[in-house]
Protein backbone atom coordinates (compact mmCIF):
# COMPACT_ATOMS: atom_id res chain seq x y z
CA UNK A 1 0.00 0.00 0.00
CA UNK A 2 2.73 2.43 0.95
CA UNK A 3 4.53 1.50 -2.26
CA UNK A 4 1.43 2.53 -4.16
CA UNK A 5 1.31 5.91 -2.43
CA UNK A 6 5.00 6.49 -3.09
CA UNK A 7 4.39 5.66 -6.74
CA UNK A 8 1.51 8.13 -6.87
CA UNK A 9 3.70 10.87 -5.39
CA UNK A 10 6.45 10.15 -7.89
CA UNK A 11 3.98 10.36 -10.77
CA UNK A 12 2.53 13.59 -9.40
CA UNK A 13 5.96 15.22 -9.06
CA UNK A 14 7.02 13.90 -12.43
CA UNK A 15 4.13 15.23 -14.42
CA UNK A 16 3.79 18.56 -12.63
CA UNK A 17 7.43 19.61 -12.48
CA UNK A 18 9.89 17.30 -14.23
CA UNK A 19 8.08 16.77 -17.52
CA UNK A 20 5.97 19.89 -17.33
CA UNK A 21 3.07 19.75 -19.73
CA UNK A 22 3.82 23.07 -21.46
CA UNK A 23 7.51 23.57 -20.96
CA UNK A 24 8.75 20.14 -21.91
CA UNK A 25 5.86 18.48 -23.74
CA UNK A 26 4.55 21.57 -25.59
CA UNK A 27 0.92 20.70 -24.93
CA UNK A 28 -1.54 23.52 -24.38
CA UNK A 29 0.78 26.08 -25.90
CA UNK A 30 -1.99 28.24 -27.35
CA UNK A 31 -3.56 29.28 -24.04
CA UNK A 32 -0.11 29.41 -22.44
CA UNK A 33 0.96 32.13 -24.87
CA UNK A 34 -2.46 33.65 -25.52
CA UNK A 35 -3.98 34.08 -22.05
CA UNK A 36 -0.91 35.02 -20.02
CA UNK A 37 -1.16 38.79 -20.16
CA UNK A 38 -2.03 39.32 -16.51
CA UNK A 39 -1.67 37.11 -13.48
CA UNK A 40 -5.39 37.37 -12.77
CA UNK A 41 -6.54 35.92 -16.09
CA UNK A 42 -3.72 33.39 -16.02
CA UNK A 43 -4.88 32.16 -12.63
CA UNK A 44 -8.43 31.86 -13.97
CA UNK A 45 -7.22 29.88 -16.94
CA UNK A 46 -5.07 27.67 -14.71
CA UNK A 47 -8.03 26.97 -12.46
CA UNK A 48 -10.24 26.08 -15.38
CA UNK A 49 -7.60 23.76 -16.81
CA UNK A 50 -7.12 21.98 -13.46
CA UNK A 51 -10.87 21.52 -13.22
CA UNK A 52 -11.35 20.21 -16.75
CA UNK A 53 -8.29 17.96 -17.01
CA UNK A 54 -8.93 16.26 -13.68
CA UNK A 55 -12.55 15.63 -14.61
CA UNK A 56 -11.64 14.55 -18.14
CA UNK A 57 -9.04 12.04 -17.00
CA UNK A 58 -11.59 10.57 -14.58
CA UNK A 59 -14.25 10.24 -17.28
CA UNK A 60 -11.81 9.00 -19.91
CA UNK A 61 -10.39 6.44 -17.46
CA UNK A 62 -13.89 5.16 -16.61
CA UNK A 63 -14.84 4.94 -20.28
CA UNK A 64 -11.66 3.14 -21.26
CA UNK A 65 -11.82 0.66 -18.39
CA UNK A 66 -15.52 -0.15 -18.50
CA UNK A 67 -16.54 0.33 -22.12
CA UNK A 68 -13.70 0.30 -24.62
CA UNK A 69 -11.62 -2.49 -23.12
CA UNK A 70 -14.44 -5.02 -22.46
CA UNK A 71 -15.76 -4.47 -25.98
CA UNK A 72 -12.30 -4.76 -27.50
CA UNK A 73 -12.50 -1.47 -29.38
CA UNK A 74 -9.57 0.34 -27.79
CA UNK A 75 -8.41 1.55 -31.21
CA UNK A 76 -11.36 3.96 -31.15
CA UNK A 77 -9.91 5.77 -28.16
CA UNK A 78 -8.94 8.95 -30.02
CA UNK A 79 -12.41 9.47 -31.46
CA UNK A 80 -14.19 8.59 -28.23
CA UNK A 81 -11.95 10.72 -26.03
CA UNK A 82 -12.13 13.86 -28.14
CA UNK A 83 -15.92 13.69 -28.41
CA UNK A 84 -16.41 12.90 -24.75
CA UNK A 85 -14.10 15.72 -23.70
CA UNK A 86 -15.85 18.22 -25.96
CA UNK A 87 -19.25 17.15 -24.66
CA UNK A 88 -18.00 17.16 -21.09
CA UNK A 89 -16.74 20.71 -21.29
CA UNK A 90 -20.05 21.91 -22.74
CA UNK A 91 -21.94 20.05 -20.04
CA UNK A 92 -19.76 21.43 -17.26
CA UNK A 93 -20.25 24.92 -18.60
CA UNK A 94 -24.04 24.55 -18.62
CA UNK A 95 -24.01 22.97 -15.17
CA UNK A 96 -21.88 25.72 -13.64
CA UNK A 97 -23.97 28.40 -15.31
CA UNK A 98 -27.14 27.03 -13.77
CA UNK A 99 -26.08 25.87 -10.33
CA UNK A 100 -22.77 27.43 -9.36
CA UNK A 101 -22.83 31.03 -10.50
CA UNK A 102 -19.76 32.15 -8.58
CA UNK A 103 -17.54 29.38 -9.93
CA UNK A 104 -18.90 30.04 -13.41
CA UNK A 105 -17.89 33.68 -13.13
CA UNK A 106 -14.37 32.70 -12.15
CA UNK A 107 -13.83 29.93 -14.72
CA UNK A 108 -16.72 30.18 -17.15
CA UNK A 109 -15.21 32.33 -19.86
CA UNK A 110 -12.19 30.06 -20.10
CA UNK A 111 -14.09 26.80 -20.47
CA UNK A 112 -14.88 27.06 -24.20
CA UNK A 113 -11.21 27.77 -24.85
CA UNK A 114 -10.24 24.41 -23.41
CA UNK A 115 -12.61 22.26 -25.46
CA UNK A 116 -10.02 21.20 -27.97
CA UNK A 117 -6.94 22.03 -25.96
CA UNK A 118 -4.36 19.41 -26.82
CA UNK A 119 -3.32 19.12 -23.17
CA UNK A 120 -6.66 17.58 -22.20
CA UNK A 121 -6.59 14.94 -24.92
CA UNK A 122 -2.86 14.47 -24.38
CA UNK A 123 -3.30 13.58 -20.70
CA UNK A 124 -6.14 11.17 -21.46
CA UNK A 125 -4.08 9.36 -24.09
CA UNK A 126 -0.94 9.32 -21.95
CA UNK A 127 -2.91 7.72 -19.13
CA UNK A 128 -4.05 4.98 -21.47
CA UNK A 129 -0.67 4.47 -23.12
CA UNK A 130 1.11 4.09 -19.77
CA UNK A 131 -1.65 1.78 -18.52
CA UNK A 132 -2.41 3.78 -15.39
CA UNK A 133 -5.29 2.60 -13.20
CA UNK A 134 -8.18 4.93 -12.45
CA UNK A 135 -6.79 6.59 -9.32
CA UNK A 136 -3.35 7.02 -10.87
CA UNK A 137 -4.97 8.53 -13.97
CA UNK A 138 -6.83 11.11 -11.91
CA UNK A 139 -3.72 11.94 -9.87
CA UNK A 140 -1.70 12.24 -13.08
CA UNK A 141 -4.35 14.48 -14.65
CA UNK A 142 -4.48 16.70 -11.59
CA UNK A 143 -0.69 16.97 -11.33
CA UNK A 144 -0.29 17.72 -15.02
CA UNK A 145 -2.83 20.51 -14.88
CA UNK A 146 -1.27 21.92 -11.73
CA UNK A 147 1.99 22.01 -13.69
CA UNK A 148 0.18 23.97 -16.40
CA UNK A 149 -1.20 26.41 -13.84
CA UNK A 150 2.26 26.93 -12.29
CA UNK A 151 3.83 27.60 -15.68
CA UNK A 152 1.17 30.00 -16.93
CA UNK A 153 1.06 32.00 -13.68
CA UNK A 154 4.85 32.36 -13.60
CA UNK A 155 4.88 33.43 -17.24
CA UNK A 156 2.10 35.96 -16.62
CA UNK A 157 4.04 37.40 -13.68
CA UNK A 158 7.16 37.78 -15.80
CA UNK A 159 5.19 39.30 -18.68
CA UNK A 160 3.69 41.92 -16.40
CA UNK A 161 7.24 42.99 -15.50
CA UNK A 162 8.54 42.73 -19.06
CA UNK A 163 5.92 45.24 -20.20
CA UNK A 164 8.11 47.98 -18.72
CA UNK A 165 11.36 46.87 -20.27
CA UNK A 166 13.15 48.29 -23.24
CA UNK A 167 13.04 45.47 -25.75
CA UNK A 168 14.59 45.60 -29.24
CA UNK A 169 11.86 46.31 -31.77
CA UNK A 170 11.83 42.97 -33.62
CA UNK A 171 11.60 41.11 -30.33
CA UNK A 172 8.65 43.04 -28.96
CA UNK A 173 5.48 41.06 -28.44
CA UNK A 174 5.51 37.36 -29.14
CA UNK A 175 9.27 36.73 -29.52
CA UNK A 176 10.22 38.01 -26.08
CA UNK A 177 7.46 35.88 -24.56
CA UNK A 178 8.90 32.85 -26.32
CA UNK A 179 12.41 33.66 -25.10
CA UNK A 180 10.98 33.94 -21.59
CA UNK A 181 9.28 30.58 -22.00
CA UNK A 182 12.57 29.10 -23.21
CA UNK A 183 14.40 30.38 -20.15
CA UNK A 184 11.65 28.98 -17.95
CA UNK A 185 12.05 25.66 -19.73
CA UNK A 186 15.76 25.70 -18.90
CA UNK A 187 14.88 26.35 -15.27
CA UNK A 188 12.40 23.48 -15.29
CA UNK A 189 15.11 21.21 -16.72
CA UNK A 190 16.68 21.57 -13.29
CA UNK A 191 13.89 19.46 -11.80
CA UNK A 192 15.13 16.48 -13.83
CA UNK A 193 17.20 15.21 -10.91
CA UNK A 194 14.22 15.31 -8.55
CA UNK A 195 13.04 11.77 -9.15
Amino acid at each position, binding site marked *: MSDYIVQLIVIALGSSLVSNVVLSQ*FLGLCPFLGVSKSVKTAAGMGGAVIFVITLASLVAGLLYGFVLEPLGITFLKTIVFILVIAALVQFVELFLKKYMKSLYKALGVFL*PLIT*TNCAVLGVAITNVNLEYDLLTSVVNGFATSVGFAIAIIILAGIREKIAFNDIPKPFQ*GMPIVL*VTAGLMAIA*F*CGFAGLI
Partner: protein
Amino acid sequence: MKQCMERLYNGIIKENPTFVLMLGMCPTLAVSTSAINGLGMGLSTMVVLALSNLMISAMRKIIPDKVRIPAYIVIIATFVTLVELLLHAYVPALHESLGIYISLIVVNCIILGRAESYASKNKMMPSLFDGIGMGLGFTLALTLIGLVREFLGAGTVFGISGPDLYGASLPELIVGLINQWLDPNSTSEAVQLWNRILTDEISSFSPMGIMVMAPGAFFILAILTAIQNVIKEKGKKAGKDVSKIQSGCNSDCINCKDSSCAKYPTDAEKVISEESDNLQVNGLIDEGARLPVEVVKDEDKQLQDDEKQEENNGLQDDEKKKESNSLPVDEINEESDAELNEETAVEEVSDEINSKETVIESEDNNILEDSMEESKPEKKHKMTLLEATQEIDIVELEELLGEEEDDTDE
Protein backbone atom coordinates in the same frame (compact mmCIF):
# COMPACT_ATOMS: atom_id res chain seq x y z
CA MET B 1 -6.86 22.70 -62.58
CA LYS B 2 -5.58 26.22 -62.39
CA GLN B 3 -7.43 26.66 -59.14
CA CYS B 4 -5.84 23.48 -57.78
CA MET B 5 -2.35 24.75 -58.53
CA GLU B 6 -3.24 28.07 -56.96
CA ARG B 7 -4.32 26.18 -53.82
CA LEU B 8 -1.01 24.31 -53.70
CA TYR B 9 0.96 27.55 -54.06
CA ASN B 10 -1.23 29.22 -51.47
CA GLY B 11 -0.64 26.48 -48.92
CA ILE B 12 3.07 26.05 -49.44
CA ILE B 13 4.18 29.66 -49.74
CA LYS B 14 1.58 32.40 -49.56
CA GLU B 15 -0.23 31.17 -46.46
CA ASN B 16 2.30 28.72 -45.11
CA PRO B 17 0.66 27.47 -41.91
CA THR B 18 3.84 27.67 -39.84
CA PHE B 19 5.97 30.45 -41.31
CA VAL B 20 3.15 32.85 -42.17
CA LEU B 21 0.05 31.95 -40.18
CA MET B 22 1.73 30.50 -37.06
CA LEU B 23 -0.81 27.72 -36.65
CA GLY B 24 -0.35 24.35 -35.00
CA MET B 25 2.58 25.37 -32.84
CA CYS B 26 2.31 22.46 -30.37
CA PRO B 27 3.37 19.72 -32.80
CA THR B 28 5.81 22.08 -34.52
CA LEU B 29 7.80 22.59 -31.35
CA ALA B 30 7.42 19.12 -29.93
CA VAL B 31 8.29 17.04 -32.96
CA SER B 32 10.93 19.13 -34.73
CA THR B 33 13.81 17.64 -32.74
CA SER B 34 15.11 16.05 -35.91
CA ALA B 35 14.47 16.48 -39.61
CA ILE B 36 13.16 12.97 -40.08
CA ASN B 37 10.66 13.37 -37.24
CA GLY B 38 9.49 16.65 -38.74
CA LEU B 39 9.10 15.04 -42.15
CA GLY B 40 7.15 12.10 -40.73
CA MET B 41 4.86 14.31 -38.69
CA GLY B 42 4.34 16.70 -41.60
CA LEU B 43 3.43 13.91 -44.01
CA SER B 44 1.05 12.28 -41.52
CA THR B 45 -0.65 15.61 -40.98
CA MET B 46 -0.82 16.16 -44.73
CA VAL B 47 -2.57 12.84 -45.32
CA VAL B 48 -5.12 13.59 -42.61
CA LEU B 49 -5.60 17.14 -43.84
CA ALA B 50 -6.11 16.19 -47.49
CA LEU B 51 -8.46 13.29 -46.80
CA SER B 52 -10.54 15.10 -44.20
CA ASN B 53 -10.82 18.13 -46.48
CA LEU B 54 -12.02 15.86 -49.28
CA MET B 55 -14.52 14.10 -47.05
CA ILE B 56 -15.86 17.26 -45.44
CA SER B 57 -16.20 18.94 -48.80
CA ALA B 58 -18.09 15.93 -50.14
CA MET B 59 -20.46 15.99 -47.18
CA ARG B 60 -20.77 19.73 -46.85
CA LYS B 61 -24.41 19.77 -48.00
CA ILE B 62 -25.45 16.86 -45.81
CA ILE B 63 -23.99 18.00 -42.49
CA PRO B 64 -26.41 20.28 -40.62
CA ASP B 65 -24.88 23.60 -39.70
CA LYS B 66 -25.48 23.24 -35.98
CA VAL B 67 -23.57 20.01 -35.48
CA ARG B 68 -20.87 20.64 -38.06
CA ILE B 69 -17.97 20.95 -35.60
CA PRO B 70 -18.58 17.57 -33.90
CA ALA B 71 -19.11 16.04 -37.34
CA TYR B 72 -15.80 17.48 -38.58
CA ILE B 73 -14.03 16.23 -35.47
CA VAL B 74 -15.38 12.71 -36.00
CA ILE B 75 -14.21 12.72 -39.62
CA ILE B 76 -10.78 14.06 -38.69
CA ALA B 77 -10.40 11.64 -35.78
CA THR B 78 -11.27 8.73 -38.06
CA PHE B 79 -8.47 9.57 -40.46
CA VAL B 80 -6.05 10.19 -37.59
CA THR B 81 -6.81 6.74 -36.21
CA LEU B 82 -6.24 5.24 -39.67
CA VAL B 83 -2.91 6.99 -40.06
CA GLU B 84 -1.83 6.02 -36.56
CA LEU B 85 -2.62 2.34 -37.13
CA LEU B 86 -0.83 2.39 -40.50
CA LEU B 87 2.27 4.00 -38.99
CA HIS B 88 2.23 1.52 -36.13
CA ALA B 89 2.10 -1.36 -38.59
CA TYR B 90 4.59 -0.23 -41.21
CA VAL B 91 6.90 2.41 -39.65
CA PRO B 92 7.06 1.38 -35.98
CA ALA B 93 10.24 3.40 -35.33
CA LEU B 94 8.60 6.64 -36.44
CA HIS B 95 5.45 5.74 -34.52
CA GLU B 96 7.61 5.28 -31.44
CA SER B 97 9.43 8.60 -31.77
CA LEU B 98 6.32 10.66 -32.56
CA GLY B 99 4.41 9.13 -29.63
CA ILE B 100 1.17 10.75 -28.59
CA TYR B 101 1.63 13.59 -31.05
CA ILE B 102 0.15 11.42 -33.81
CA SER B 103 -3.11 11.12 -31.90
CA LEU B 104 -2.95 14.83 -31.20
CA ILE B 105 -3.17 15.62 -34.92
CA VAL B 106 -6.92 15.63 -34.15
CA VAL B 107 -6.62 18.89 -32.25
CA ASN B 108 -4.23 20.54 -34.69
CA CYS B 109 -5.64 23.98 -35.45
CA ILE B 110 -4.68 23.78 -39.10
CA ILE B 111 -6.99 20.88 -39.86
CA LEU B 112 -10.13 22.16 -38.19
CA GLY B 113 -9.34 25.64 -39.44
CA ARG B 114 -9.14 24.52 -43.08
CA ALA B 115 -12.26 22.40 -42.71
CA GLU B 116 -14.15 25.36 -41.34
CA SER B 117 -12.81 28.05 -43.61
CA TYR B 118 -12.28 26.25 -46.92
CA ALA B 119 -13.53 22.69 -47.27
CA SER B 120 -17.01 23.45 -45.92
CA LYS B 121 -17.57 26.03 -48.64
CA ASN B 122 -15.79 24.68 -51.71
CA LYS B 123 -15.92 21.82 -54.16
CA MET B 124 -14.10 18.56 -53.66
CA MET B 125 -11.07 18.93 -55.93
CA PRO B 126 -9.98 22.38 -54.74
CA SER B 127 -10.53 21.25 -51.16
CA LEU B 128 -8.33 18.20 -51.70
CA PHE B 129 -5.58 20.35 -53.18
CA ASP B 130 -6.02 22.93 -50.46
CA GLY B 131 -5.36 20.16 -47.95
CA ILE B 132 -2.37 18.87 -49.89
CA GLY B 133 -0.94 22.38 -50.27
CA MET B 134 -1.36 23.26 -46.61
CA GLY B 135 0.01 19.86 -45.63
CA LEU B 136 3.06 20.30 -47.85
CA GLY B 137 3.63 23.76 -46.41
CA PHE B 138 3.46 22.32 -42.91
CA THR B 139 5.79 19.45 -43.88
CA LEU B 140 8.28 21.87 -45.41
CA ALA B 141 8.27 24.06 -42.31
CA LEU B 142 8.59 21.17 -39.87
CA THR B 143 11.40 19.59 -41.86
CA LEU B 144 13.30 22.88 -42.09
CA ILE B 145 12.96 23.63 -38.39
CA GLY B 146 13.87 20.04 -37.60
CA LEU B 147 16.91 20.29 -39.88
CA VAL B 148 18.17 23.41 -38.13
CA ARG B 149 17.58 22.02 -34.66
CA GLU B 150 19.12 18.69 -35.51
CA PHE B 151 22.20 20.25 -37.10
CA LEU B 152 22.80 22.62 -34.19
CA GLY B 153 21.80 20.21 -31.47
CA ALA B 154 23.22 16.91 -32.62
CA GLY B 155 25.52 17.84 -35.50
CA THR B 156 23.75 15.56 -37.94
CA VAL B 157 21.56 15.96 -40.99
CA PHE B 158 18.67 13.51 -41.41
CA GLY B 159 20.41 11.32 -38.85
CA ILE B 160 23.58 11.12 -40.92
CA SER B 161 26.50 12.15 -38.78
CA GLY B 162 29.84 13.33 -40.06
CA PRO B 163 31.84 10.10 -40.27
CA ASP B 164 29.27 8.60 -42.60
CA LEU B 165 29.97 11.24 -45.20
CA TYR B 166 33.20 10.39 -47.09
CA GLY B 167 34.99 9.63 -43.84
CA ALA B 168 34.89 13.23 -42.68
CA SER B 169 32.85 14.95 -40.01
CA LEU B 170 30.29 17.52 -41.12
CA PRO B 171 32.26 20.59 -40.06
CA GLU B 172 35.33 19.21 -41.81
CA LEU B 173 33.25 18.67 -44.88
CA ILE B 174 32.06 22.27 -44.81
CA VAL B 175 35.62 23.52 -44.42
CA GLY B 176 36.65 21.36 -47.34
CA LEU B 177 33.85 22.77 -49.47
CA ILE B 178 34.79 26.34 -48.66
CA ASN B 179 38.43 25.65 -49.43
CA GLN B 180 37.60 24.10 -52.75
CA TRP B 181 35.41 27.03 -53.55
CA LEU B 182 38.21 29.43 -52.67
CA ASP B 183 40.85 27.67 -54.71
CA PRO B 184 41.49 23.96 -54.65
CA ASN B 185 45.15 24.15 -55.65
CA SER B 186 46.18 27.37 -54.00
CA THR B 187 48.99 27.31 -51.49
CA SER B 188 48.85 31.03 -50.90
CA GLU B 189 49.06 32.24 -47.35
CA ALA B 190 45.54 33.65 -47.32
CA VAL B 191 44.01 30.31 -48.11
CA GLN B 192 46.31 28.57 -45.65
CA LEU B 193 45.30 31.02 -42.94
CA TRP B 194 41.65 30.75 -43.82
CA ASN B 195 42.02 27.02 -43.74
CA ARG B 196 43.72 27.06 -40.35
CA ILE B 197 41.24 29.46 -38.76
CA LEU B 198 38.31 27.49 -40.00
CA THR B 199 39.75 24.16 -38.98
CA ASP B 200 40.73 25.41 -35.55
CA GLU B 201 37.40 27.08 -35.03
CA ILE B 202 35.16 24.38 -36.29
CA SER B 203 37.09 21.32 -35.28
CA SER B 204 36.20 22.31 -31.75
CA PHE B 205 32.54 22.28 -32.81
CA SER B 206 30.48 20.40 -30.31
CA PRO B 207 26.72 20.17 -30.69
CA MET B 208 24.57 22.49 -28.60
CA GLY B 209 22.53 19.86 -26.86
CA ILE B 210 20.02 22.45 -25.75
CA MET B 211 18.75 22.91 -29.29
CA VAL B 212 17.20 19.45 -29.37
CA MET B 213 15.82 19.87 -25.87
CA ALA B 214 12.66 21.77 -25.00
CA PRO B 215 14.18 25.24 -24.48
CA GLY B 216 15.81 25.16 -27.91
CA ALA B 217 12.40 24.88 -29.54
CA PHE B 218 11.23 28.03 -27.80
CA PHE B 219 14.37 29.91 -28.82
CA ILE B 220 14.06 28.85 -32.46
CA LEU B 221 10.44 29.90 -32.51
CA ALA B 222 11.34 33.21 -30.87
CA ILE B 223 13.88 33.93 -33.61
CA LEU B 224 11.35 32.93 -36.26
CA THR B 225 8.69 35.27 -34.90
CA ALA B 226 11.24 38.07 -34.59
CA ILE B 227 12.04 37.66 -38.29
CA GLN B 228 8.32 37.70 -39.02
CA ASN B 229 7.99 40.93 -37.05
CA VAL B 230 10.70 42.56 -39.15
CA ILE B 231 9.08 41.42 -42.39
CA LYS B 232 5.68 42.55 -41.19
CA GLU B 233 7.05 45.96 -40.28
CA LYS B 234 8.67 46.31 -43.68
CA GLY B 235 5.49 45.18 -45.42
CA LYS B 236 3.46 47.71 -43.50
CA LYS B 237 5.79 50.49 -44.52
CA ALA B 238 5.51 49.45 -48.15
CA GLY B 239 1.73 49.44 -47.75
CA LYS B 240 1.24 45.75 -48.34
CA ASP B 241 -1.42 43.55 -46.86
CA VAL B 242 0.35 41.84 -43.98
CA SER B 243 -2.73 40.93 -41.96
CA LYS B 244 -2.15 37.21 -42.56
CA ILE B 245 1.31 37.18 -41.06
CA GLN B 246 1.36 35.75 -37.56
CA SER B 247 -2.40 35.90 -37.40
CA GLY B 248 -2.13 32.78 -35.31
CA CYS B 249 -4.93 31.01 -33.55
CA ASN B 250 -5.32 32.76 -30.32
CA SER B 251 -5.73 30.17 -27.57
CA ASP B 252 -8.78 28.63 -29.19
CA CYS B 253 -8.47 26.17 -31.99
CA ILE B 254 -12.10 25.37 -32.51
CA ASN B 255 -13.17 28.92 -33.25
CA CYS B 256 -10.26 29.49 -35.56
CA LYS B 257 -11.84 30.51 -38.82
CA ASP B 258 -9.64 31.38 -41.73
CA SER B 259 -6.93 31.91 -39.16
CA SER B 260 -8.20 35.31 -38.25
CA CYS B 261 -9.78 34.71 -34.90
CA ALA B 262 -10.26 38.39 -34.22
CA LYS B 263 -13.10 38.48 -36.72
CA TYR B 264 -15.18 35.83 -35.02
CA PRO B 265 -14.44 36.13 -31.31
CA THR B 266 -16.22 33.96 -28.81
CA ASP B 267 -17.47 35.46 -25.59
CA ALA B 268 -14.30 34.52 -23.80
CA GLU B 269 -12.08 35.90 -26.50
CA LYS B 270 -14.09 39.07 -26.50
CA VAL B 271 -13.32 39.57 -22.83
CA ILE B 272 -9.67 38.84 -23.39
CA SER B 273 -9.34 40.92 -26.51
CA GLU B 274 -11.23 43.81 -24.96
CA GLU B 275 -8.78 43.74 -22.13
CA SER B 276 -5.81 43.83 -24.38
CA ASP B 277 -7.49 46.40 -26.62
CA ASN B 278 -7.76 48.70 -23.66
CA LEU B 279 -4.14 48.09 -22.88
CA GLN B 280 -3.07 48.77 -26.39
CA VAL B 281 -5.21 51.85 -26.96
CA ASN B 282 -3.90 53.46 -23.80
CA GLY B 283 -0.43 52.52 -24.81
CA LEU B 284 -0.94 54.14 -28.19
CA ILE B 285 -2.15 57.37 -26.70
CA ASP B 286 1.02 57.54 -24.68
CA GLU B 287 2.89 56.87 -27.88
CA GLY B 288 5.15 54.40 -26.19
CA ALA B 289 5.78 50.75 -26.63
CA ARG B 290 6.06 50.37 -22.91
CA LEU B 291 2.95 50.44 -20.80
CA PRO B 292 2.67 52.84 -17.90
CA VAL B 293 1.54 51.68 -14.49
CA GLU B 294 -1.85 53.33 -14.84
CA VAL B 295 -2.67 51.14 -17.77
CA VAL B 296 -2.38 48.02 -15.73
CA LYS B 297 -4.56 49.60 -13.09
CA ASP B 298 -7.07 50.54 -15.76
CA GLU B 299 -7.13 46.97 -16.88
CA ASP B 300 -7.95 45.84 -13.37
CA LYS B 301 -10.67 48.46 -13.15
CA GLN B 302 -12.07 47.18 -16.40
CA LEU B 303 -12.16 43.69 -15.01
CA GLN B 304 -13.90 44.87 -11.87
CA ASP B 305 -16.36 46.85 -13.93
CA ASP B 306 -17.11 43.78 -15.94
CA GLU B 307 -17.77 41.83 -12.80
CA LYS B 308 -20.05 44.54 -11.49
CA GLN B 309 -21.95 44.53 -14.72
CA GLU B 310 -22.42 40.84 -14.46
CA GLU B 311 -23.72 41.14 -10.93
CA ASN B 312 -26.09 43.92 -11.82
CA ASN B 313 -27.50 42.79 -15.07
CA GLY B 314 -27.33 39.04 -14.98
CA LEU B 315 -25.38 37.03 -17.45
CA GLN B 316 -27.54 37.25 -20.51
CA ASP B 317 -27.88 40.99 -20.41
CA ASP B 318 -24.19 41.22 -19.91
CA GLU B 319 -23.48 39.13 -22.93
CA LYS B 320 -25.73 41.35 -24.97
CA LYS B 321 -23.90 44.37 -23.68
CA LYS B 322 -20.59 42.90 -24.59
CA GLU B 323 -21.84 42.18 -28.06
CA SER B 324 -23.17 45.67 -28.50
CA ASN B 325 -19.94 47.05 -27.09
CA SER B 326 -17.85 45.16 -29.51
CA LEU B 327 -20.18 45.67 -32.42
CA PRO B 328 -18.76 49.00 -33.61
CA VAL B 329 -15.27 47.57 -33.61
CA ASP B 330 -16.45 44.58 -35.58
CA GLU B 331 -18.18 46.81 -38.06
CA ILE B 332 -15.09 48.84 -38.57
CA ASN B 333 -13.18 45.64 -39.02
CA GLU B 334 -15.54 44.43 -41.68
CA GLU B 335 -15.65 47.75 -43.40
CA SER B 336 -11.96 48.12 -43.44
CA ASP B 337 -11.55 44.54 -44.57
CA ALA B 338 -13.91 45.10 -47.44
CA GLU B 339 -12.00 48.16 -48.44
CA LEU B 340 -8.64 46.70 -47.69
CA ASN B 341 -7.93 45.91 -51.29
CA GLU B 342 -8.96 49.36 -52.39
CA GLU B 343 -6.78 50.91 -49.76
CA THR B 344 -3.79 49.01 -50.83
CA ALA B 345 -4.66 50.07 -54.33
CA VAL B 346 -4.65 53.72 -53.30
CA GLU B 347 -1.40 53.35 -51.48
CA GLU B 348 0.02 51.59 -54.43
CA VAL B 349 -0.93 54.41 -56.76
CA SER B 350 0.96 56.83 -54.58
CA ASP B 351 3.78 54.47 -53.76
CA GLU B 352 3.89 52.76 -57.10
CA ILE B 353 7.32 54.02 -57.93
CA ASN B 354 8.60 53.17 -54.51
CA SER B 355 7.22 49.70 -54.57
CA LYS B 356 8.77 49.11 -57.96
CA GLU B 357 12.09 50.02 -56.52
CA THR B 358 11.86 47.73 -53.54
CA VAL B 359 14.40 45.02 -53.84
CA ILE B 360 13.31 41.50 -53.20
CA GLU B 361 15.58 40.52 -50.39
CA SER B 362 14.28 37.18 -49.40
CA GLU B 363 11.81 34.51 -50.18
CA ASP B 364 9.43 35.89 -47.62
CA ASN B 365 9.46 39.25 -49.26
CA ASN B 366 8.56 37.42 -52.38
CA ILE B 367 5.40 36.23 -50.75
CA LEU B 368 4.37 39.74 -49.89
CA GLU B 369 5.22 40.87 -53.37
CA ASP B 370 2.93 38.25 -54.79
CA SER B 371 0.06 39.03 -52.51
CA MET B 372 0.40 42.60 -53.64
CA GLU B 373 0.29 41.67 -57.25
CA GLU B 374 -3.02 40.00 -56.72
CA SER B 375 -4.61 43.19 -55.56
CA LYS B 376 -3.27 45.18 -58.47
CA PRO B 377 -6.32 44.69 -60.68
CA GLU B 378 -8.23 46.58 -58.03
CA LYS B 379 -6.29 49.62 -59.04
CA LYS B 380 -8.72 50.15 -61.88
CA HIS B 381 -11.29 51.47 -59.43
CA LYS B 382 -12.07 55.02 -60.21
CA MET B 383 -11.73 57.24 -57.23
CA THR B 384 -12.41 60.87 -56.71
CA LEU B 385 -9.97 62.87 -54.67
CA LEU B 386 -12.46 63.12 -51.82
CA GLU B 387 -12.90 59.39 -51.67
CA ALA B 388 -9.19 58.93 -51.75
CA THR B 389 -8.65 61.16 -48.75
CA GLN B 390 -11.36 59.29 -46.89
CA GLU B 391 -9.63 56.11 -47.75
CA ILE B 392 -6.39 57.38 -46.32
CA ASP B 393 -8.16 58.14 -43.06
CA ILE B 394 -9.33 54.56 -42.99
CA VAL B 395 -5.82 53.43 -43.75
CA GLU B 396 -4.65 55.09 -40.58
CA LEU B 397 -7.53 53.59 -38.65
CA GLU B 398 -6.74 50.23 -40.13
CA GLU B 399 -3.16 50.52 -39.00
CA LEU B 400 -4.29 51.27 -35.50
CA LEU B 401 -6.68 48.35 -35.59
CA GLY B 402 -4.03 46.16 -37.07
CA GLU B 403 -1.72 46.90 -34.21
CA GLU B 404 -4.43 46.15 -31.71
CA GLU B 405 -5.08 42.86 -33.38
CA ASP B 406 -1.40 42.07 -33.25
CA ASP B 407 -1.54 42.51 -29.57
CA THR B 408 -4.42 40.15 -29.09
CA ASP B 409 -2.68 37.62 -31.22
CA GLU B 410 0.00 37.17 -28.71
